[in-house]
């Protein structure tokens, strides 16, 4: 059972306090975008064996959505940060690279 630190309230939250929300940093496609772009936004998701950026909500805590960078195999957590972040922040990228120097960034 994972522990993630909620960046809003600072609580080290058990997974039972959290609700998962899938891949982070999706760019919303909408009216005016092509069928392909919209399909990719709706359905195409990363499924890496490795570093993954994902959405979590502190559902049974402060109720805030936040983002986490996590290794899907080792379950190492590189950091959590507010949902109002369009791209993975520099310190999170640095934390990943420190542990995985060969990591090439998001797929």
């Amino acid at each position, binding site marked *: *059972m994972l522990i993630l630190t909620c960046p809003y309230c600072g609580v080290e939250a058990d997974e039972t306090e959290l609700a998962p929300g899938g891949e982070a940093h999706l760019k919303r496609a909408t009216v005016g*975008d092509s069928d392909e772009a919209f399909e990719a936004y*709706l359905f195409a998701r990363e499924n890496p064996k490795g570093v993954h950026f994902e959405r979590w909500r502190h559902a049974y805590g402060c109720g805030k959505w936040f983002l986490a960078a996590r290794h899907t195999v080792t*379950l*190492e957590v590189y950091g959590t940060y507010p*949902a109002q972040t369009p791209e993975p922040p520099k310190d999170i990228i640095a934390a990943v690279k420190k542990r995985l120097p060969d990591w090439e960034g998001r797929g």
Partner: protein
Amino acid sequence: MSHRIEGKGRLIDRSKTLRYTFNGKPMTGYAGDTLASALMGAGQMVMGRSFKYHRPRGAVASGVEEPNALMGIGEGGRFEPNQRATTTALFDGLSAKTQNHWPTLEFDIGAVNDLGARFLPAGFYYKTFMFPRVAWKHLFEPFIRQSAGLGAVPKEPDADRYEYAYHHTDVLVIGGGVAGLAAARAAAAGGASVTVLEQTPHWGGRAPVDGGEIDGTDPDAWVKSAVEELEKAENVTLRLNCMGAGVYDHGFVLGYERVADTTPGDDRPRHRLWRIRARQIVTATGAIERPLSFPGNDLPGVMLASAVRDYVENWGVAPGKRALIVTNNDDAYLTALSLHAAKVEVAGIVDVRPTLTGPLAERARKAGIRLMTGKALAGVKGRSGVKAALVTDLAGKGTGEAIECDTIAMSGGWSPVVHLWSHCGGKLLWDEGEALFKPDPERPPLGADGQGFVATAGAASGALGLAEALADAHEAGRRAAKAAGGTLTRKAAPKANETERQPLKPVWIMPAGAGPEKRMKMWLDYQNDVKVSDVQLAAREGYQSVEHAKRYTTLGMATDQGKLSNINGLAVLSDALGQPIPQTGTTTFRPPYTPISMGAIAGEARGELFQSIRRTPMHAIHDAAGAVWEPVGHWRRPFCFSEAGESDEEAVNREILNTRENVGMLDASTLGKILVKGPDAGKFLDMLYTNMMSTIPVGKCRYGLMCSENGFVSDDGVVVRLAEDTWLCHTTTGGADRIHGHMEDWLQCEWWDWKVYTASLTEEYAQVAVAGPKARKVLEALGGMDVSKEAMPFMTWADGTLADIPARVYRISFTGELSYEIAVPANRGAELWEKVREAGAAHGIQPYGTEAMHIMRAEKGFIMIGDETDGTVIPQDLDMSWVISKKKEDYLGKRAQQRPDMAREDRWRLVGLETLDGSVIPDGAYAVGEGLNDKGQRNMIGRVTSTYYSPTLKKGIAMGLIERGPERLGEVVDFATLDGTGTVIKARLRGTCFYDEEGAKADV
């Protein structure tokens, strides 16, 4: 025959006799006995029949690894099957029943399977019962179900209670043997908070039985002082009878505590499931001895050497009068010496090693015990017990000297208990010298910080000797404290003295030259009746992966999960595949370590506590009024209010007719109510709903539809403009929490710069709908507000005081009648309900339930989320274009509704359905069209979504989604029935509204 011996039995108290029954027969044992030790003490060696061949079986082990001695314990509501007699503590009044035999343990008809064993090889299900198919169902399956299996299912509800408990600790030590205690001492000295779990009722593990010297004293004394020291330490928690059941991600551990197993009905919870968070975990789980694979190694009386020693030393029980030892290592010599000291005759020690050089062999020799080197067992004589063993050369084929004995103590070496290390991904190494898999400290399970969070200590690390085990455990405890935020203690590790050991010689089957007949009698997995021949057959048939071979042969699949002989099985498989053991690898270790009770998993979540029920403020009143309850989400809502002698259907019809003719009242408190406020609230709601919400004038209400981003209808309800910057969104009862979450998701994650605030007010208000032609009269009788058409027209609202209760009244209608929904503070809901009923009495008011509400809305052609929609329906399918804004550039779902499949013209769309004969179409019926599909079924062209008998119209009414429906009004469509005769119900397509199409009744 097994019997008690004098002068031994460190765990029993011979002054306290306990009474119990075994298959109904009264028996006695001593306080401190396990069920197995008590039975053996009373001469009862046979404790069950095997799974497949129904062979008589006795205890082979003395602890959790026991595969054979499984029994049904307790009676009635306290009956539990498949309990290991070796870990069941004896208590006064215990009742035990053996399993898997008919009619009796001694005489079992199923034993004919044993004679036909050659026809029941690995995978026999798949091979034998292929054809004819009918024979499987009527012949083979019933036979197998009858003859194969373990215990019976309990027939009564569990009479006990169970609970969860929660615990946080820096260092969790699992295992309270000398290694666990040493690790705990070192961790506690480093300043960490330490918790120690021990699955048995005793501290110290095997060390007190095995002997040696720790810190200049015997292990028993050392354990006593170590426990005293730990008990005194404020940062240490000790728990006996509590097994570490599983290690999970990021330091989560389940502990399984057996609280009141031996005191049933004492009002304490029977088991407690501990949910533990530990920064560091030290598994000091010891090692389990391996059997040897020789022909007949499953007969009662053939036991692990360590178990024989345990019975002698711990419980003062000898499994027989004359014991033969067979071993490939020095450890079994301790058993020979223990038996010798207890004055049980030792017939000899059969050792596979050609020369014996160690001091233990020397002690045995001095004791006058016969040593047979380079030898093996080629067979065991006896049917339901051991009569003699055949000793032969290790390399031989199987003839040799018969040695009379009634006990065979075997040792094939030891396997560290790596389960808890492996549960969360810890990797293993093959130790060639000791022939065992042990944890690879370089590849531990990783925590959130990417560092290892599990370490092993003592024998669990593969450190089998006392001195190295204690040194290893001390170091593990030191490091765990440091990793958990404490310090590395300078305290010295306990010092141990022990007899030097000669290395073991790995032997996986004996004798080496055994033919097929003998290999068919060499058991690997006792509980599932898997033999050497089965694993070799699996290898010949191409099962190369150990996981596949496990499932094909069932090796290691029963309740013991192969604790005894998995390594033996892997070795046999590796040999058959011609590859080294590490290349074969192990199967996956999964929690729990041993089975835990279903009750412990359920905890308190039974009966009323299984799921919390939400009740409206009027719940008790409805209950007293004879409400027939219906679950709606977590709520309970009245389905209808049956009067005396009335069926539910009659009640529903009465409620509808009364509402249409007079006036009805509904508890609408469960509807979701979400406040949306802020400068950007209107903009936000325009994105959320398909229609415009920003343009509702203050004081008015508007119906709205909400879609998910993929275009499908998600929820609906009336939106109210409370103030310039404030809206109140009503949602469906079941959608309230979900829609609030949906709003927050978009506000926090997409439009986070929009100034909008949301709050769920669902439980702040009680809400009562008063509907019917006489509704206004009822509100006028309540008094306090002008509820005239002029003051409060349709689709408006007003704040005021009604019957002296502060109220907000909405002129909205879900029935099609003149209707008011009155919202009051929740704590005044019951009062409002009573006052409405009193005020309405003169006008014939009656409460109505959810079914009447459903039928009345269907008469009006209003959709119901979950009936007309199912997650694949877009608003355009519902013929509700009036609720889809053409002006808005964007809303959630708009882009999706432009996708080619959504814009298809032949989509199933909503229409009303009127049967030609007035009957009611069955719920869920499909509309069938011309032609057949590739399975010979009629092509589907739609389905019914809501179907009812309308008491208002006195006929069946329905709505359905039909291909191009709205374009085909007036056509007659066939609906298939499910009676199998191919008959159809004919219905004419029409508009969805069956009642008051102009909407004149609501707008008066």
